[in-house]
């Protein structure tokens, strides 16, 4: 399975500067590409375009050659930096987790998700716990690629290591393709198969 992006350009308004200018990028299943660079250079924007959250002004997003359509479950899922924004505050965790599919018991254990958390409100959980839910939610059987946008920047170092430990395990087993956006080169080297700097991608 291959996810490619050709000639992608993006800006938020006609009078605003180009954030991305004809960027080409390809990732195959099982590959984990680190996207490095300081904030404000379009890393997240590229991530959003890959996962279909934003439509590029120019260029195409192709999954195995076919355009990524909007209908149905998108095989490219995204996990965000602030988990508390990615969950509906008026839903219990159980409803949030089971929104797309019912994950089996084993996956929840593997993620370190305690069953008692399932009937809690999002505001009663910490950032680390919420992020585990967001990851579990994104790991539906149809998911082939994961875009991780600074997912552990806000968390403490131990939680970061815990999350990456089980995430890499799952990615390896299911041969998921992962785009890992981070400003921390050490983390990039440790979790990615290869690393790319955002400013080297576009013109």
């Amino acid at each position, binding site marked *: 399975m291959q996810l490619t992006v050709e000639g992608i350009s993006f800006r938020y308004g006609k009078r605003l500067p180009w954030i991305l200018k004809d960027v080409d990028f390809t990732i195959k299943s099982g590959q984990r590409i680190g996207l490095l660079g300081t904030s404000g250079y379009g890393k997240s924007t590229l991530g959003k375009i890959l996962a*279909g959250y934003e439509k590029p002004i120019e260029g195409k997003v192709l999954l195995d050659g076919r355009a990524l359509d909007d209908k149905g479950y*998108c095989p490219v899922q*995204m996990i965000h930096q602030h988990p508390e*924004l990615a969950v509906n505050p008026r839903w219990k965790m159980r409803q949030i987790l089971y929104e*797309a599919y019912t994950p089996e018991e084993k996956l929840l254990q593997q993620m370190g998700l305690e069953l008692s958390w399932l009937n809690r409100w999002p505001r009663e959980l910490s950032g680390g716990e919420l992020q585990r839910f967001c990851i579990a939610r994104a790991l539906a059987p149809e998911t082939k690629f994961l875009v991780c946008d600074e997912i552990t920047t806000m968390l403490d170092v131990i939680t970061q290591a815990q999350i990456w430990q089980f995430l890499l395990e799952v990615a390896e087993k299911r041969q998921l393709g992962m785009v890992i956006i981070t400003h921390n080169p050490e983390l990039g080297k440790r979790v990615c198969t290869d690393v790319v700097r955002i400013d080297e991608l576009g013109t």
Partner: protein
Amino acid sequence: MRSKRTVFENRRIQLVFWVVLALCYLLGIFFVGLGVKESAYGICFEDKFLAPSLRHPFGTDGLGRDMFFRCMKGLSTSMVIGILAAVVSSFLALVMGILSAVLGGFVDKFINWAVDLCMGLPHIVLLLLISFMMGKGMKGVTIAVALTHWPALTRLVRSEVLQIRSSLYVQTAYRMGKSPYQVAVTHMIPHVLPTYVIGLILLFPHAIMHEAAITFLGFGLPAEMPAIGVILSEAMNHIAAGKWWLALFPGLLLLTVVVLFDVIGDNLKKLWNPQSGNQ
């Protein structure tokens, strides 16, 4: 068991207590008013212009009619109109608000334009024109009040829905293949409902006040029907003769009803959204 003081002193219980108290008072007026028989406030000339006394707590008017029961009757009719108008307006606002936020584009522009249009004329003037068109009377004032209160609530609902629509969890839901309908029902309604219900409650007193205002100016309920607006406009003629109680008590009654609705609305607002409840 904790001592009585701490349980009561706790803010959340206070909020609920005030809401319940206000509700009982309003329902009391509503049902007493409905139940009052014609005879209770009938005309009897010998006790004309009696000052407030035990037998007539609100005194009597030029035709000897007991003001207390007349006010209660009038207020409950106003409340009926108020409920009708509030329900119609808020339902209209809910539909318009969600439609304009979810569909966006032309629909959004049109509804926004219609809201500006309705807000363009001063409220009283619009009420006047509509009731003028309907040939005054009860039907006219009810429709007038019902059709002029939806713009403000529509804007409230629309901004709430817009905020949710742009949230990350809704975008993620779409990326997980959820249809706009599913998103609207599962994500939007739970968010919009509290705003909607509180909007409905806060709309109610406005509806009653505007009905009283239009009736006072002579366009609402016909003169023979007991209504706060009518009572107060009659009272105006006797002000110069010093019959102060004719004006004071009806207005006071209306004021308490409106204030209590505001109290219910504000307290529910505090109870419902979790963060603000923690002060």
